[in-house]
């Protein structure tokens, strides 16, 4: 799933390790989510949204909205 995690992290000058520690997940998990290789569970997505103080949809791009825009 496309997302703005890398941008949001860079704005705060956090490394993947820093973000992983804040979310209590591994650096690999952060990398997999950032690169769209892994879609986080709803609880983890909420933790990410709460950490950045943003709604989930401002961090993660809905696949259905993305495809409807493409049409």
């Amino acid at each position: 799933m496309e997302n703005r995690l890398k941008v949001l992290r860079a704005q705060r000058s956090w490394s993947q390790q820093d973000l992983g520690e804040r979310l209590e997940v591994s650096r690999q998990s952060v990398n997999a989510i950032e690169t769209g290789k892994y879609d986080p569970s709803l609880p983890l997505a909420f933790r990410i949204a709460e950490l950045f103080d943003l709604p989930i949809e401002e961090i993660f791009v809905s696949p259905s909205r993305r495809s409807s825009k493409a049409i």
Partner: protein
Amino acid sequence: MARTQAWRRYNWRAIWLSLAYAVFLIGAVYGFKHELIPGALKYPVALLPALPIIGLFISMGRYLVEEQDEYVRTLMVRQTLWASGFALSAATVWGFLQNFDLLGPVDGYWIVIAWYFGLGLGGVANKLTLGDGGC
């Protein structure tokens, strides 16, 4: 594979169980070879080396329950699916070849070795598809 707390615990359990396996296996082989085991005890002594191997499967299950990092857990679940698929396929192929007298019988515990080999294949699959090799 990230070295999470759950992974460290799994590793410790695996080390102790492997040591127990070596001790039980050497003891059972020695006992049977030198005919030290009375008839009634033969079954339990023969089964002793199987117990730590069963323990390894249980500890893998515990690891999957204890792992808090959902992505790392997903990697291991994928690996175990590869392992199970590989081991069951290998057993099926061997079974049919043996049925038609093209291969001889093998000891049942080879399925465990095939399963652990499949675990390694799963790690390679994770590396190729997700960029994370796993254990």
